[in-house]
């Protein structure tokens, strides 16, 4: 299971939980898993099927160029962060 940090404005979907566990080998699969647990999760995060404009995926602290196709390890931490120049 990977740990997913739920963006604050989506915690209404997770009953206030800021961190949830999820299965999946890629970020795509993780989001699909969370959609099954928390209906509406995918539509919010990926309104057009792709990650919402201005957001990036961070897996284990690294912004991956692969986006939603980024591999997720067994104990990975997945979070979502705005894409801004400067870390």
């Amino acid at each position: 299971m990977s740990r997913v940090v739920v963006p604050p404005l989506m915690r209404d979907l997770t009953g206030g939980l800021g961190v949830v566990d999820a299965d999946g080998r890629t970020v795509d699969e993780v989001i699909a898993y969370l959609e099954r647990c928390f209906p509406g999760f995918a539509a919010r995060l990926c309104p057009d099927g792709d990650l919402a404009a201005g957001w990036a995926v961070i897996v284990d602290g690294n912004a991956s160029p692969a986006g939603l196709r980024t591999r997720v390890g067994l104990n990975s931490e997945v979070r979502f962060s705005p894409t801004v120049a400067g870390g």
Partner: protein
Amino acid sequence: MATTKTPPKTFAVIGTTPPRVDAGAKVTGAAVYGIDVMLPRMAYGRILRSPHAHARIVRIDTSRAEALPGVVAVATAADLPEAVDRTDRVGEGTVNYRYTRDATFAGDKVLYHGHPICAVAAVTPEAAEDALALIDVEYEPLEPVLDVRGAMEPDAPILHPDLRTRSLAGPGSTPTNVAAHMRFEIGDPDQGMAEADVVVEREFQTATVHQGYMEPHAATAAWSPEGILTIYTTTQGAFDVRTRVHELLHHPLADIRVVPTEVGGAFGGKNTGYTDVAAALLARKAERPVRVVMSREETLMATGPTSGTWMRVTVGARRDGRITAAKAELRYEAGAYPGAPVFSGANCMFASYDIPNGRIDCYDVVVNKPRTGDYRSPGATQSAFAAETVLDEVATCLGMDPIAFRLINCACDGTSRITGGAHEHIGIRQVLEATRDCAHYRAPRPKSDGYLRRGRGVALGFWGNWGARSSVTLSVAEDGTVSLLTGSVDITGTRTSLAMQAAEALGLPLEMLAPAMGDTQTTGHSDSSGGSRTTMATGIAVCRAAEDLLARMEERAAAWWGVDSATVEYARGVFTSSTTGDAMSWAEVAGHQSETGGAIRGHGDVNVRKWGAAYATHIVDVEVDVETGGVRLLRHTVVQDVGRAIHPGQVASQMQGGATQGIGWALYEGYAYDAQGRMLNPNLLDYKMPTYLDVPAIETILVEVPYPGHPYGVRGVGEAPIVAVPAAIAAAIHDAVGVRTTRLPMGATQILQLLGVIDP
């Protein structure tokens, strides 16, 4: 005075201060800037702009202008194909080409004073100007909205009827000026605040300010009969210009050649262009080259200044000085189209501290002003003004020295940030300690004298920097000299700092390197020279290219000797064969290139995905005239972690320049509008940038905490030194006269009001 705190050097070239390679051309007037380009048969383009901040365009009639002798082309929005509704990353921000098209020439509405309507080209600049006066535009004025809070009111005039708030809370359902809302959170901010012994909350406002580059925007476009478009322009990123022109004209990328000129200042403001598309359209219609140069008035009214803001910051701390929680609400004006640097502001504002509980809400809000662009650490200076001012007040309430307070709370490697992610390889503690220990901070505070009250302030700023794509080619000539060609535009002296890294990596004297800027036809893709990335990221590309070149040179030496290249070694200009014992100089191998296989080149193409952040503190002594409200700087020191200073003189110059822009932002600069949204100060008399007499001799202290991701430890240095300046000056003003300034610029009116001398 520049002081360098530096580990022992083991370099031959890095750390020295040779003259910059572009200096000779710049002191003789030979350097060609964007405004200087002249082509045979060139015509002169001018852009007609809206006198209204918000109005519907009823009718445009260009017939009288077209009939004027000397006019060779008129271009309007009808000449632009429809643009795709897609958001791309450009420079340090994002763009949506649908909006870019509308900003190039207004569609059915004008959205700010100065919004382009159409453009004309004529055989003289005077005829082009006369033609502008002959274009008839009928407007139906609409109520403008000019400040971020007004724009968020439920009954505010709406700029874009189709705009809905983008938010992970779900998309908005009603028309709005709030383009986006984001929230960041760590820990439990409410609980954290409850645990605090001291809580300080303040609201802040900052005015729209401009980068103030001395050279206005300019582009010269020419079409070949085959349809190749060449654009000479003053830009930070030739490839970004190419992409935007491609998106707006639907012309193939490779058929657009963008040639960057010398750049007369940029500071983020030339990450995008405002003249290139108009020049291209006019040149195509006129069938001759067209140059479009903006005036200073146009530059101030209608390029991309940075956001005016409204902010609220709350910080709680325990008696022992430990911060327990921080909250912020940031509302940034995007200007006419979405894209304020508010997330960047959020990202930077508390990045210097280990804050266990925090929440930041950010709003990107459209208003009837020009669409904001990047300005040196986009978004960070505003939020740092708010955050650092509140932190200074918390320290004051706790009776603590402001540096000691910051050292208690400072972030370190591994510290989690409110906006997500954790720090790596940061030099913040070293910067704070160097600040605490420096001569300026230890000197007695300046004493007041009658109505002249003096005080000292300090503040800390963060900028994350950037990596991204860079391309470098090193070519060896027959005499051994090496040309360095890069797609990275030199806006600050990077030809010199890149050549220095190449010389170091190649073991050659700097004089053997000849660096030059390429264009989109001659170099590989290089992202905009923004985000303080060039000496760092393009420096990595230089090192790659140097490795590549050395391998090629070893192969050529081996080919000359007829030995295995693995047996050739290189050191300080000499190749030796370990099998034969033969030796050849660099120049000899270069001289044999024809016989050994032709041209010898090394390439470095990178997309740098990790980079080191930069921190800078400012110590400022001010004098406040409590009778007039005037503020004068007496002394100013910048302390910054620069990673490794390739050229310490140029690094210090960046720190001094950043500090100076910060002084202008703090004390003098700010857009002023009337109630109808017309800009009142589009000139350098009333948009007041600091002169020689407003800036003391700024002292610099370079702290070197090398960043391990760069072969020489380089961090970006250009942007960080502006971030904390307004906050440091505000702290100094408080130290001098005991009032907290919360509005930028901190002009005399505000000071007199806070002192109770005049009514607000």
